[in-house]
Structures are given as structure tokens and as C-alpha cells.
């Protein structure tokens, strides 16, 4: 697909990197020459220096013949303007980054008027991700499918727990419910396991389960804890704003530390229900004063990676069970060894979201991708597909179907009923199925998963 990205900043770059990796023809427009050159040097895409809101530059970038335009400059207004022009020039769809909370609330009024296909809001996405993790503490990662009815969670296999030494075939007996392991990460290797695979302590295990069973499974593993009730947020950034809103709505106690007085007052105005502290959140005295160690979860989002990372290590040392750390440079994430310290990268989440969107756009004809999540550090993809009449394997029992290597069907959602499939189950038209595959294979259509009939 031909995609034009306007704005080559953090988010723009991450999206361009992901989408070139997916094999699309990308053109990035940025006003800053050195930014444009850096992109042209490091990514296999075209980079153009110029103002993305001018029709002349848009023509050069090929907006009129492009399938998608993503506007992600620093200014919301500019992004919307770019999309309006791009639409007028005849691009397929247009996506604008809109991140001001005020605009975000009224976006539904604007979407049609501006001809936007969708908007993206990295900060809001990040906040949502943090919120979801706080809902089920104990898991390392949590990805939802089928409208939240199915979850794939990442947990660590500890020595002596139910998973240690168990082969996957035995899991249902041990848990007294069907459990499906989609992927296992052992050291640097990633496996998409079959039934004979035996788990070892230290493995990161990706378990696919109906949302209703999840608590039961985690309980059996001794991982389950009550959801976070008292949460401390350090730094009153936009992510904090979105997160506070969600947490308050869910009835969680929120304490916010923000250094800037004006911003702190603004936050108090917006969230009278939250406790707002105006102090330096990176000061250990302040943290002690505010009882950081007794919190169920602490989120670091001061806007500076270094500060967030160091703070998270310090707070982790205090014994806080769940940490959420906002970082832009995910590469530094290897520094963090604590599995309960979640690194949240808004730009990366946003790039993933765009990949999902583009994949869905690409095959809106066939069995389209509904959801796409990366597991195991991006080495494994979990995709949810709609099953349409064109699906080759429909109506056949799974034991009669041969799938390609390293592909698993993790679950079937039939009208809201979640089936963890066994050999006797079938895939029917109207279902959605979650498929697990290694990520260097690009699955666009459900029919791609079946081994070719000889």
C-alpha cells in the first residue's frame, strides 16, 4: 500500500519503521531537513523535506494516489488540516493524531466533517494499556481479543508452580479447565509449542483464555491479587490525565504528584476526586511522605525516560507490587529485570495500532484482521480474523485440517461463546478466530494459515 506519513517525530518514525517492515511503500514528510535525512538514511522509505500541510509538498509526496495518509506532527490542528487537504486531493483514508484531551472528547463531532477515517492518540492508548494492566495485576502483559472476551496474558513460570515441568497436554487436567498456551519465550528463543512441549521454570508463557476463566487460572497459579485500589501517579503528563480519568471512573484511589504548580492546579480542577500533590516526584522524601511504598501500583510518567526508569527501580525496591513506566526508547527496557515493571511506550503502541489498521484496510475484501497483537517482544503475532464464507477450513473438524508450521488456532469466538479448541471443534462462518503465528510470516487472510493441499 502507498502510505504517506506527515511528521517524522517519535511517533511518525515508529509508525514508518513498523510499516516499512510490513512491506509498504512509505513516504515521510518532515519540515526539518536533518530529520528527513535521518529517516531516508535509516529506513527503506522515501523522505521529503517540506511542510506537509501545503498542497505542493503533498503532490510531490504522492498524496493524491496514496491509500492512506497519517498526520502525526506535533500540532493537533495541523494534523487535522493535513487530513482535510489530503482528503480533498483524493487520498484513500486519512488518520490524524489528536492528543489534546479537550479535542479527544469532541472528536466524534469532527471525524465526519474532516473526513477522518480514525484518529490516534498515543497518550490515550498508553493510558488505556496501563489501566488494563492495573485491572489484573500479576500478569506481565495482557492483550484482548473478541471485544475483551478473550485475553492472552503473559506470565512467568516459577519453580514449583503448576506450570513448571508440565507438558502442555496435561495443563487442562491441572487447571481443571481448558488452557491454551500460544507461545513460550525461553531466554532468547521463542517457541510456538505443540502438545508435547514441556514448560520449565523461567519461561515466559503466553496463555490464551476466556476472560471469565482468567481469574481462576491466575488463582491456581498463585499469581492472582486483587486489582489495584490505591495508585500513585508521578508526573502529571497527558498520559496521567487520561489514566486518572479512567481510574477514577473505576473507583480507584488516585494520588498524583506534579511539580509544576499551574499544571497541578489544572489537574485538581479537572479531577476533584483525585489527591493532587504539588512536589518533585523524583525526590525520595516526597515519595516517603506520600507513602509510595504502600501503594498497589505506581506509574512513572515524568516525561523523561531516564528519570522514569530510575524512579521505577527505586520504587520497585520499596516493594510496590506493580510498576508502570512510560518510556520512549524501548531499547533501554533491557535494563529492567523486574518482571512486574511494565514498560509502556506510547509511540510503539501507536505504531502497533497503525499496523493493525493497515492490515485490516489491506484485505477488507476477504477474512479481515480484526485485532493484531505482538507477543514475545514482537517475535510472535496473535491475530483475530472474521471467518467469512471464503474460508477454506470452515465446517471441518480441526483434527482433519493441516495448518502451516508454527501456526496455531488459539480460540474460537462463536456469538460471544468462547471455545478453546480441541480436535473435534470446527470453525464456522460468522465466528472470529485468534491465530498465533511467528511474526516474520505475514498473514493477511485466514486462508493463509492452511497448509496447501497436495
Amino acid at each position, binding site marked *: 500500500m*502507498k502510505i504517506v506519513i506527515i511528521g517524522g517525530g517519535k511517533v511518525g518514525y515508529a509508525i514508518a*519503521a513498523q510499516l*516499512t*517492515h510490513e*512491506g509498504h*511503500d*512509505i*513516504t515521510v514528510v518532515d519540515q526539518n*531537513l536533518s530529520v528527513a535525512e535521518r529517516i*531516508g*538514511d*535509516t*529506513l*527503506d*522509505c*522515501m523522505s521529503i523535506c517540506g511542510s506537509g500541510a501545503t498542497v505542493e509538498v503533498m503532490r510531490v509526496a504522492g498524496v493524491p494516489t496514496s491509500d492512506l495518509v497519517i498526520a502525526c506532527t506535533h500540532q493537533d490542528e495541523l494534523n487535522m488540516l493535513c487530513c482535510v487537504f489530503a482528503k480533498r486531493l483524493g487520498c484513500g483514508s486519512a488518520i490524524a493524531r489528536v492528543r489534546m484531551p479537550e479535542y479527544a472528547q469532541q472528536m466524534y463531532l469532527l471525524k465526519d466533517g474532516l473526513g477522518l477515517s480514525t484518529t490516534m492518540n498515543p497518550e490515550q492508548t498508553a493510558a488505556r494499556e496501563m489501566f488494563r494492566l492495573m485491572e489484573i495485576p500479576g500478569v506481565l502483559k495482557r492483550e484482548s481479543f473478541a471485544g475483551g472476551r478473550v485475553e492472552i496474558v503473559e506470565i512467568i513460570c516459577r519453580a514449583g508452580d503448576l506450570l513448571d515441568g508440565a507438558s502442555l497436554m496435561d495443563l487442562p487436567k491441572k487447571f481443571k479447565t481448558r488452557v491454551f498456551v500460544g507461545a513460550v519465550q525461553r531466554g532468547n528463543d521463542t517457541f510456538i509449542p505443540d502438545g508435547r512441549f514441556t514448560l520449565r521454570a523461567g519461561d515466559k508463557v503466553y496463555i490464551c483464555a476466556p476472560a471469565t476463566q482468567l481469574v481462576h487460572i491466575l488463582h491456581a497459579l498463585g499469581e492472582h491479587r486483587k486489582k489495584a485500589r490505591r495508585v500513585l501517579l508521578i508526573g502529571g503528563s497527558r498520559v496521567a490525565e487520561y489514566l486518572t480519568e479512567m481510574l477514577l471512573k473505576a473507583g480507584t484511589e488516585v494520588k498524583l504528584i506534579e511539580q509544576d504548580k499551574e499544571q497541578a492546579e489544572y489537574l485538581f480542577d479537572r479531577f476533584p476526586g483525585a489527591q493532587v500533590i504539588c512536589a518533585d516526584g523524583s525526590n525520595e522524601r516526597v515519595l516517603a511522605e506520600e507513602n509510595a511504598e504502600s501503594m498497589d501500583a505506581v506509574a512513572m510518567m515524568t516525561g523523561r525516560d531516564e528519570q522514569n526508569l530510575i524512579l521505577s527501580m527505586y520504587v520497585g525496591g520499596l516493594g510496590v507490587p506493580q510498576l508502570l513506566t512510560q518510556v520512549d526508547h524501548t531499547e533501554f527496557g533491557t535494563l529492567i529485570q523486574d518482571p512486574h515493571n511494565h514498560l509502556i511506550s506510547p509511540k510503539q503502541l501507536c505504531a502497533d495500532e497503525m499496523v493493525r489498521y493497515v492490515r485490516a484496510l489491506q484485505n477488507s475484501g476477504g477474512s479481515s484482521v480484526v485485532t493484531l497483537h505482538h507477543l514475545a517482544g514482537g517475535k510472535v503475532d496473535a491475530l483475530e480474523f472474521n471467518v467469512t464464507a471464503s474460508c477454506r477450513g470452515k465446517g471441518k473438524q480441526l483434527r482433519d485440517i493441516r495448518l502451516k508450521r508454527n501456526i496455531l488456532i488459539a480460540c474460537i469466538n462463536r456469538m460471544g461463546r468462547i471455545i478453546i479448541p480441541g480436535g473435534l471443534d470446527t470453525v464456522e462462518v460468522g465466528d472470529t478466530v485468534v491465530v498465533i503465528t511467528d511474526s*516474520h510470516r505475514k498473514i493477511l487472510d485466514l486462508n493463509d494459515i492452511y497448509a496447501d493441499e497436495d
Partner: protein
Amino acid sequence: MNYRTVINIIGKVLCVEAMFLLPALILSLILHEREAVTGILVTMAVAAALGFPLSRVRGRRPDIFARDGLVTVGLAWLAVSLVGALPFCVSGAIPSYIDALFETASGFTTTGATILREIESLPRGLLYWRSFTHWLGGMGVLVFLLALNPLSRKDSGENMHLLRAESPGVRASKLVPRMRDSASILYLIYIGLTGLEFLLLLLGRVPVFDSLTLAFGTAGTGGFTIRNDSAASYSPYAQWVLIVFMFLFSVNFNVYFLLLMRQVKKALRSSELHCFAGVFAFATLLFVLNTRSYFPDFWDGLRHSAFTTVSLMSTTGFVTTNFDLWPQISRSLMILLMFMGACAGSTGGGMKVVRVQLLFKSAYRSLYRAVHPNAVRLVHLDGERVDEPTVRSVDGFLLIYFLTVAAAGFLISADGFSFETNFSAALSCMSNVGPGLGGVGAVECYAGFSDFSKLVLTVTMLIGRLEIYPMLALALPGVWKGK
């Protein structure tokens, strides 16, 4: 330094070379040229034996930085030249390995300087390979690899560094977002134009083998022919075809891409193209006037003048008449034409027209600033601002260009030829033209130089073709220590 990836790419380049020797082998087999068959077979075996294991080396990291790009390109060109020289040497056609190396490097760099006094007696298979090196070297071996795309992992935009290091021009840019597509488009245009020339030559009753080798020689703007008198004995029609195609191959290939995209206006707006055409017209006119007494027939004079002009400007180096005998002012102009060379992004060599344009603009600016010290003055080209680092890099390029020519000219002076011979030979090799003046003039050859001088000129040709940096980067000590 990412040694593993560099080695991997060089292995692949050698494999490609072995593959490209195949047509030459088949030709030799058909014509029962026993020595040539042995030579080519041995070379293919060597290239494959070196290339295949090397191409199995997997890089731990896929990333290539500017430094790795330069080193890869420099080493790859050395490797193809060293291996590509073997057929001549093993078959006994050119007994001395250094001579064979000179000839091959001259082929790959599209110089067309030869050490052979007697060309026609060479086996056909070797003549084919000799001309084919022009074709391959013209667009670039690594660009070919990029078009095939065994190189790039899905996300390695870093291959841009390879393209940039191998393609001539101030700053090579992609035509379309995908590297592989860009490289493929370039090669398709290249193959298309070569094919067209081949057909037009065939129509003029030029023998098939001559047409093919002439087309290779023109396409790469090389200059090897299979006759001792270069292109002099071909019909006027064939010479006009060569004139047209030498011109076409020295134009920036972006122009053809834009024409294919039906953006005719934009394609023809390029000031570099105008400048190139203008100089061509001016030089042709001057030659015509200057050589009136040599050619009684006006059309003959025009043909020889146009041919010589475009042959030197495109840095091809075909010869139809002994232009070394022309009046001094014409000979001086020839040196200037050799120096300027063709347009950036073409297969031609030299300083490149666009650099000369920038040099003039920057020189004018210096003068202007001397008079108006506080004046704001920026360099513009094609209506767009050229940023300061680019302007400065062109100044630096000019300096190194001259220093290289001076050094090479000095080093080969030991052989006792005249000043004119030595420095025109050095400039001719640096600009990848082929013939020079005096002892290396239009009807002479490089056979008289000592082995040392031939090596010096071989390196000069490589420096010229790769636009200095890749070759000189190899000599920079810090590069190898990964600094």
C-alpha cells in the same frame, strides 16, 4: 565495523560475477575457443569458491552505517576487478596479471583505457566479457544486487548507504520509496535503452557481435570496442547512433523515470540537463569551426566533432578520428570536457555537471561577498536551496579530485613520458574517459607504462568511478579498527 555483513555482501557480489561470466563461457564454447573456455571456467570456479562460502556468513546485526557502506563498495569493486581479470590472464590472452587487472578495472570503472595494441585477435568470449564489464560497472554491481534484493532484510533502510556509495552524484536519491523498486527501475531503464541501441545498430547492418559490444560500451559509457581503430570503421549511421546514445546515457536517469511517469515538463526542467546540452552544443560548434581544414565535407566535420565532444563529455572514449592532431584550442577544450564529465545519476564519470554548476555558483558567491561583505547569499539550484554542507562538500570534492590527479600524474612520471601524456592519462583515468592526449592519445594505448604506473592508474580509475570516498575510506586507518 560490521565485518560479517560486509563479507556477506562481497560474497554475494562474487557470486553474481560468476553468474555473469556464464554467457561469455557459452559463447566461447560455441566458437571452440579452448583457452578462453579454460580461463573463464577457472574464473567462475574461483569466484564461486570464494563467493559462496563468504555469502554464507550471516551478519549478527543487520545494520549498515555510512562507514560500512563505503568500505563494502570499495572492497566489492576491488574484489570484482581482481577476480574479473583472471580470464584474460589464465587464457593467456593478456599474459601479465597486472595488465589484465588494468584492463578489467578499466572495464568495470567504464574507463575504456586499454593496454592492448592488438584487440581483434582476442577470443570472442573474452571480448564479450571485456565489453560486458562496462555494462555491469556502468550502473553498478551493488545496485544490481539491490535490484535482485537478496541483500535487504525487510527493514534495512541502511542499504541506502550502499546505493549512495556506488552511484555517482552529489546525493543519490531514490525514485520510489522502496530501495529494491528504485534499483529495479534504474536497471529496467538501463536494459531498455541498451536494447534499443542494440536494435538500432543492427538496423544499420552492424554485425550482431559488434552491435552488442558497442551497446555495452555505450551503455556503461565505457569505451571498449572490438576493433583496433575503436569506432572509426563503422558507418556514419552507426556513428550517429552512438552519438545519440552516448548523450542519452550521460543524462541523469531520473529524467527517464519522470518521462516514464509522464511528467515531461518536470523532466525537461532540470538545469543540469540544460547545462550539459549547452556545453555539448558549444563544444561541437567550436570543434567544427576549429577543424574546418581537416574535414572538407561539412557533415563529416560535424559528425566527428559531435562524436568527439559527446564521447569525452559522457566519458565514453570511443574514437572516430585522431582528435589528438586537432589544433591546440580544441585539445585544451577536450581536457576541460574530460574534467567536467556527465550528469549526476548517469553512467558517466568525471566531476559531474551538477558539481561544476555548484562550483561556479559558489565561486560567484565568494566574489559577490568580497564586494558586499554583509550580503545574504544562498546557493540555489533548480529553484531549490542547496544547503551549506552540500556546497562545502562539493568544494572538498574538487580539491580531492585535483589532488588525486596530481598525485597519480606525478607517480607515473617516472616512466619518462611527457608532462602532457602523464597528466592527461591521470585525468582521463580519474574521469573514466579512456584516451588522453599525447602518448595516450586517441590512437595510442597504455601499454607503454610500467607495471607500477599501471597499478597507480588502476587505483585512480577505481577512485574516479566510485567518486573518491569508498576507495579512500579503505585507506583510512581508523575505519578498520571500527573507530
